């Protein structure tokens, strides 16, 4: 009962938080000088004042800001994210179309970065003062320190121009129109360079963390006990030490999801990957308020939901938290 009451309170708070996010985003975005009517008129190569006024009126931009906020909140409450000024499409269909490519890029990159990072971290921890270990540390830090757009462009140059084995833009070959396995293969080939860019950025963190975690794990009592029992070194290393060292890595994988979305904006733009990140970039450039607000709303909702779920899971799993405040 306490659990459900707490959940209800959290849900109520979350709705208020979501409302605050919507209003704040709306006001901040609309406070910048200039508006979408100028972008639309600008791309027309000029327009009369009547046309600019008509655009403002069509999209309700001529109304007072607070009226616009109220209309928008009401609209969101009714499940309508609005209509894109620029793409002439409902925002919900634009966003829905862009979510799968972004998820594919992010999940693939995150999983690959975690696996590669852990492997490198483990190799590095096996002989922490050896040349391979120093080399891994050097390349990890270089990958992490390089700006994402620069890494992306260098990979494009390398694999697009000098050694053209991967496509450098898009998600699939529009002209060939592949189906079935050929389509999957085509997408994987297009995925190579954008995901490699994100992997280079993120594998460094996993490698450093897993190295430190492994070193710590290798110095614990249970590892010493395992060795004392006469287990072979490989089993001690991979089963006893690594399994325990992976816990912080898994936690970090979850935390990396947010920053990875930020990185995806740049990577998707550089590689013309048709995901949410590129939509954010296009919408910022064109002041497409409804799309920007829609994406911010969806992201805020996802974060809030994730927090509620985590909170609820803690309560279910850990009896110490279940009782609530005394």
């Amino acid at each position, binding site marked *: 009962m306490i659990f459900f009451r707490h959940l209800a309170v959290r849900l109520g708070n979350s709705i208020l938080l979501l409302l605050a996010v919507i209003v704040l985003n709306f006001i901040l975005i609309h406070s910048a000088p200039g508006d979408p009517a100028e972008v639309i008129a600008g791309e027309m190569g000029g327009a009369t004042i009547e046309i600019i006024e008509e655009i403002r009126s069509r999209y309700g931009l001529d109304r007072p800001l607070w009226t616009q906020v109220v209309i928008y909140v009401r609209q969101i409450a009714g499940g309508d994210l609005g209509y894109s000024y620029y793409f002439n499409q409902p925002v919900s269909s634009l966003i829905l179309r862009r979510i799968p490519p972004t998820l594919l890029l992010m999940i693939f990159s995150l999983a690959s970065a975690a696996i590669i990072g852990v492997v490198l971290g483990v190799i590095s921890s096996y002989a922490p003062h050896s040349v391979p270990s120093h080399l891994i540390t050097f390349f990890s830090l270089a990958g992490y320190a390089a700006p994402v757009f620069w890494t992306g462009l260098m990979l494009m140059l390398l694999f*697009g121009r000098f050694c053209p084995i991967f496509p450098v833009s898009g998600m699939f070959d529009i002209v060939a129109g592949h189906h079935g396995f050929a389509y999957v293969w085509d997408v994987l080939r297009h995925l190579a360079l954008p995901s490699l860019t994100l992997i280079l950025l993120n594998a460094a963190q996993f490698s450093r963390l897993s190295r430190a975690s492994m070193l710590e794990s290798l110095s614990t009592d249970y590892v010493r006990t395992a060795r004392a029992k006469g287990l072979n070194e490989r089993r001690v290393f991979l089963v006893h030490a690594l399994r325990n060292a992976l816990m912080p890595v898994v936690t970090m994988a979850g935390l990396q999801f947010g920053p990875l979305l930020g990185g995806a904006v740049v990577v998707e733009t*550089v590689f013309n990957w048709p995901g949410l990140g590129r939509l954010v970039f296009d919408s910022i450039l064109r002041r497409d308020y409804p799309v920007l607000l829609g994406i911010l709303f969806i992201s805020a909702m996802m974060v809030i939901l994730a927090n509620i779920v985590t909170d609820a899971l803690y309560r279910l799993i850990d009896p110490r938290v279940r009782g609530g405040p005394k």
Partner: protein
Amino acid sequence: MRTLRWPQLILVAALVSGLLAVRPGLGWAAEHTKGTLVLGTDSVPRHFNGAVQSGSATALASTQIFASPLRFDANWNPQPYLAESWKFSEDGLTLTLKLVKDAVFHDGKPVTSDDVAFTIKTIKENHPFQTMLAAVDSVETPDPLTAVIHLSKPHPAILLAMCPGLMPIIPKHIYNTGGNIKEHPANVKPIGSGPFKLVEYVPGEYYTLEKFDRFFIPDRPKLDRIVVRIIGDVNSMVLSLENNELDAIPQTDDIPAVQRLEKNPQLLVTNKGFEGIGAINWLAFNTKKAPLDDVRVRRAIAWAVDRDYIVGTLMLGKVEPSYAPISPGSPLATEDVEQYKVDLDKANALLDEAGHPKNDKGERFSLQIDFEPDSEFLQHNVAEYLRSQLKKIGINLTVRSSADFPAWANRISNYDFDLTMDTVYNWGDPVIGVGRTYISTNIRPGVMWSNTQQYVNPKVDELLNAAAVEMDQVKRKALYLEFQKLVVDEVPIYFINVVPYFGIWRQGLENIPQSIWGPLSPLDEVHWTGE
């Protein structure tokens, strides 16, 4: 041991992928698909109805989807298209179009004079270029293949206004449904009578055009399909072209990329085909703000700027200089104006005369310069150069950035600026794209590319109004010559260069568009060698 399985699998997959990718025939860098042309652009079309939306993003598609009464060759001569003939009356107040017999829309309905009349009415009421058809009073349709256009005054630019980019003939039976035509659903699912029909549009990503089998010109179009990919990042677009993922970038002003691609033997780089657009890069003055309200100060700045250095060094010698309001590609252009060859002594003398002596630090006054935020090469570089150059005559110039286009446009169109770099299109004829930035009746706050300099000269107004109704080309040219001399002399704008647009096409493509409207005209004759 489970932890090691995935890394091993990924390693194997990566190796196999690499091996397959480099195998000849399976690699990415394959030959083009037969009959298909893949274009790259960084512009997103809001929709495809060029009758109510100007700009090259829409025109690139709408000129393929819709046919227009006329088209133009590389020498500014009108050519038959939907109209097989056209004739002005003696007094120049009536223009009669005779339409071809066999033209049909993509839905099979015939193209008639009713569609022409409906289109002209729609453009007059909705198109951003209001001067383009302002002189049209009415359109009579005595029979399905004859349209008689009545004008309130002679209109020498009307034939140019009938080109594919400016007058796509839209079907009355589709669009005449009432309501706001700018929001008509057919704008994103267009039905035209042009050489290609739209078969797919994924907003912001790509659109596909397919050959229209019943196009009214026999044996055209020659291509089966055109795919236009929208690639926001120019570097990515250029690498896609080098990597054979694109066949052409029909319009770009990225000079460093052009310079690199020119060396690629598989590509053909041309600057032909942009005369109609007539884009000029210039330095504009706020003529109502002191000290720039004094013509001597504006002239001093003009004498201080070294145009040759900007054109030859800053822009890597890849651009053409511009000296006057009408773009050099136009038959009405002139170079017979004061060209302001750099002369710092003259500039200093003019500032002294205007009452702005140098102080102890050698400074006279401070000014601010703006530039379009996405124009690093053409504008920001020049603004930075001007900062150091104007210091030589005692003007302390600061360069102000804007976060994005709306922020910059908001400042300029509301006169919150001293000087600004700007790029403005002529759009073929001075009536459409030139007069708007000089005529005093077009000083309209909040409107970009109106007379944002707030320049007022009754003689200029008189000349522009007279030239706009002069049907005799020789007399018209004389009127525009006088106008250009006056404007250059009073320097509301200092003209720097023609915007260096280039088309980059893969070798093996025949008949690439080189008329005055270049890629903003039908690509019905383009084809691959041997196809």
